[in-house]
C-alpha cells in the first residue's frame, strides 16, 4: 500500500498539513477564526494577479537559497552561511550594475555572474578550512555571515555611495526587471530572475544525478572514508560543494539586488533569505524538484501572511510558527513513518 518512495513523498505533505493544523489551533486558541485566517492567507497569495506576481517574486530567491543549502547537504555539509553568501552576492550584483557601463547583453550577465562568483568565494573559504584543516564548517560559515553583513554595510556607506544608507538604483542594462512580467501581474515586482532560479534547479539536478562529479559529491556525502578508499579526493569535493552552494546563494542575492529592489542598502540585520533556505531545503528533501516546490510553498505562506492582519486580524508571525512546525514534523519524520507503517500493517 505504501512503498518507500510514496512514504518519502507523503512525509512532507503530512508535515505541511500538521503544521497548518497547529496554526489553526493557535488561531482558535486566541479567538480567531482559522478558516478566515487561512482564507486571508490564500487571498494574499493568489487573490489576484498582483499578489500572485509577488508570491512568485518571493519564491525566486527561496528556490536559489534552498538549492544552496540542499547542494551542500548532499555532500554532507551544513552550509548555514547561505545568509552571508546572499548578502555578498546581492552587493556584487549591484556593484557591477553601478560601476560598469555596457549594453544589456553584456552588462546583465556580468552582474549575475559577479553575484555567483562573490557567493562562491564566500563559500570557498569555509570549504577550504574544512577540507584542509578540519575546521567545522558550521562555525566558520556563521562567522562569515557577520563578516559579510558588516563589510557590505561599510562598503555601501563609504565606497559605493557617499555616506548614504543605500546605493543608487542599478541602470536598466543591469536590471532583471521585466516590463512584460510586471504588466502581466498588475505591476508586481516579478522579474526575470524566476527563470534563472528554475534553470539553476535544473542544473543542480543534472550536476548531481547525471555527471561523474555529482556522483563523487554525493558519495562524499554518504561516506567520506569509503569515498577516499575508492580514490576520490574528498577535500576537493568538499571545497567544490561549498563553492557551488555559495554560487547558488550568491545568485539568490542577485535576485534581490538587481531584481526585486535594484539597490543594496545598509542592513540592520540579516535578510533571512538564507535561513529560510534551510527550511526550504529540508522540506524539499534536498532534491532540486523538492526545493522548487518547497520554495513555492514558503513563498506563498510568507506573502499570503501579509494579508492576514487586514483580512482576519491575525498577526503575520503566525506563519513563522507554522513554518517552524512544518520543519519540526519533517525532522521528526520517524514518527510519521512509524505511523504510516502501522497503517500499512493494519491495512493488510
Amino acid at each position, binding site marked *: 500500500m505504501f512503498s518507500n518512495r510514496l512514504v518519502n513523498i507523503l512525509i512532507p505533505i503530512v508535515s505541511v498539513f500538521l503544521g497548518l493544523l497547529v496554526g489553526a489551533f493557535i488561531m482558535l486558541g486566541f479567538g480567531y477564526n482559522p478558516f478566515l485566517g487561512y482564507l486571508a492567507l490564500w487571498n494574499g497569495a493568489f487573490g489576484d494577479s498582483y499578489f500572485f506576481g509577488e508570491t512568485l517574486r518571493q519564491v525566486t530567491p527561496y528556490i536559489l537559497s534552498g538549492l544552496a543549502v540542499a547542494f551542500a547537504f548532499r555532500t554532507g555539509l551544513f552550509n548555514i552561511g547561505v545568509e552571508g553568501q546572499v548578502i555578498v552576492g546581492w552587493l556584487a550584483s549591484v556593484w557591477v550594475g553601478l560601476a560598469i557601463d555596457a549594453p544589456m547583453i553584456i552588462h546583465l550577465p556580468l552582474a549575475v555572474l559577479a553575484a555567483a562568483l562573490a557567493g562562491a568565494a564566500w563559500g570557498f573559504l569555509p570549504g577550504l578550512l574544512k577540507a584542509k584543516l578540519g575546521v*567545522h564548517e558550521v562555525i566558520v560559515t556563521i*562567522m*562569515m555571515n557577520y563578516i559579510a553583513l*558588516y*563589510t557590505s554595510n561599510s562598503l555601501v556607506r563609504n565606497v559605493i555611495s557617499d555616506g548614504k544608507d543605500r546605493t543608487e538604483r542599478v541602470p536598466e542594462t543591469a536590471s532583471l526587471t521585466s516590463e512584460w512580467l510586471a504588466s502581466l501581474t498588475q505591476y508586481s515586482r516579478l522579474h526575470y530572475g524566476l527563470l534563472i532560479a528554475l534553470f539553476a534547479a535544473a542544473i543542480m539536478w543534472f550536476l548531481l544525478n547525471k555527471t561523474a562529479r555529482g556522483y563523487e559529491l554525493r558519495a562524499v556525502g554518504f561516506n567520506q572514508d569509503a569515498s577516499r578508499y575508492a580514490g576520490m579526493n574528498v577535500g576537493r569535493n568538499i571545497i567544490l560543494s561549498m563553492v557551488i552552494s555559495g554560487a547558488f546563494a550568491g545568485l539568490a542575492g542577485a535576485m534581490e539586488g538587481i531584481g526585486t529592489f535594484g539597490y543594496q542598502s545598509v542592513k540592520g540585520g540579516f535578510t533571512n533569505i538564507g535561513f529560510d533556505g534551510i*527550511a526550504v531545503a529540508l522540506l524539499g528533501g534536498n532534491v532540486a524538484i523538492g526545493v522548487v516546490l518547497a520554495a513555492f510553498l514558503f513563498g506563498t505562506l510568507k506573502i499570503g501572511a501579509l494579508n492576514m492582519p487586514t483580512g482576519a486580524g491575525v498577526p503575520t508571525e503566525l506563519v*513563522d*510558527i507554522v513554518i*517552524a512546525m512544518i520543519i519540526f514534523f519533517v525532522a*521528526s519524520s520517524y514518527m510519521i513513518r512509524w505511523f504510516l507503517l502501522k497503517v500499512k500493517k493494519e491495512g493488510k
Partner: protein
Amino acid sequence: MGFLDILQSIIGPAIFFSAPLIFTAIGGVFSERSGVVNIGLEGLMVMGAFVGIVFNLTFIDTLGSWTPWVSIFVAMIVSAIFAIIHAVASVTFRADQVVSGVAINFLALGLGLFLTKQWYGKGQTDMVDRPFYTTDVPFLAEIPIIGELFFSGMYLTSYLAIAVAILGWYVLYKTPFGLRLRSVGEHPMAADTNGINVSKMRYIAVMVSGAMAGLGGSVFALTIALNFSHSTIVGQGFMSLAAVIFGKWHPLGAMGAALFFGFAQSLSIISSGVPLLQDVPQVFLLIAPYVLTILALAGVIGRAESPKAIGTPYIKGSR
C-alpha cells in the same frame, strides 16, 4: 588617558557583553556533551529574552526591586520547558538534531513575536522600568587596582555567569552525574550497558541547555536590550555555539571563548576612547571577533575533538 583607565574601560564592557554568552555556552556544553547538537541555542535565548521582558513588565508592581531576578529565574524555567521540544524531537523521535534546532529557532522567534503582537498590539514590547543596574561590590571594590578593574560598576549577573561556568565544570567533571552525562555523549551503548538511562540523561542535558540559554537570553534582555522585538537576539545564540566549539566542549574553555567574544565585541564600542583604536575604521572592529574566531579555529586549535556520539540518536539494540 592612563593605561589603567584604558584597561578599566575594556574589562568592564567585555565582561558585560560576554555574560549572556557564557550562560548560553555552558548550556550548550551540557547538551553537546550528552550527544545532542543544539543549534537551537539562539531560539532558546529568544525565548528567555521574551519571557524575561514580559514577566518584568507584568510583575513590576508586585515584585518591586526583585523583579529582574525573578524574571530571569522564570525565563530559565520556561526555556527549560521549551527545550523539551528539542529533546522530544531529537531523542525520542530520532529527528536530525540540526534540523530540530533550526525549527526551535524559527518557533521561538515566531511565537515570541506573535504573542508580543497579541499582547502589546505592536512589533516590540515597551521598555522595562526595572532592568539590572551596575553596582560596586561591597568591600572588594575598595581593593586598589583590582577593585577598580573587576569589582566596581559591574553587573551582578556577570559574576553569576562566571559562577555558573565554574559550577558547570564541577558538575561535568567532578560528579558521577557529569561522568554519566559525558559517557552518554561518547559511547551511548557502553553507557546503556552500564545501566545508564541514555534518553533520560539526554533529556536532562537538553533541558539544562534550555535553562542556561533562558538565563543568557533574559540577562541579555535585561542588561543590554531592555525590550523585546525581532532584533533583540540576533546571533548571540550562534556566538555561544561558536564559543562551545571554540572552547572545545569544556565549560571553562567555553567561558574563556565567550569572554574573548565579549572582549572583541566591546572593542568596537569603546574604541572611540582608546588612543590607537580610534583611528581604525569601525568596520574592522565590527568584524574583528568573527575574523579572529576563524583565524583561531584555523591556526591555534585546529581540529577540535567533538564528543564521539554527537548528532546521532541512540537506538537501543542497534550496533
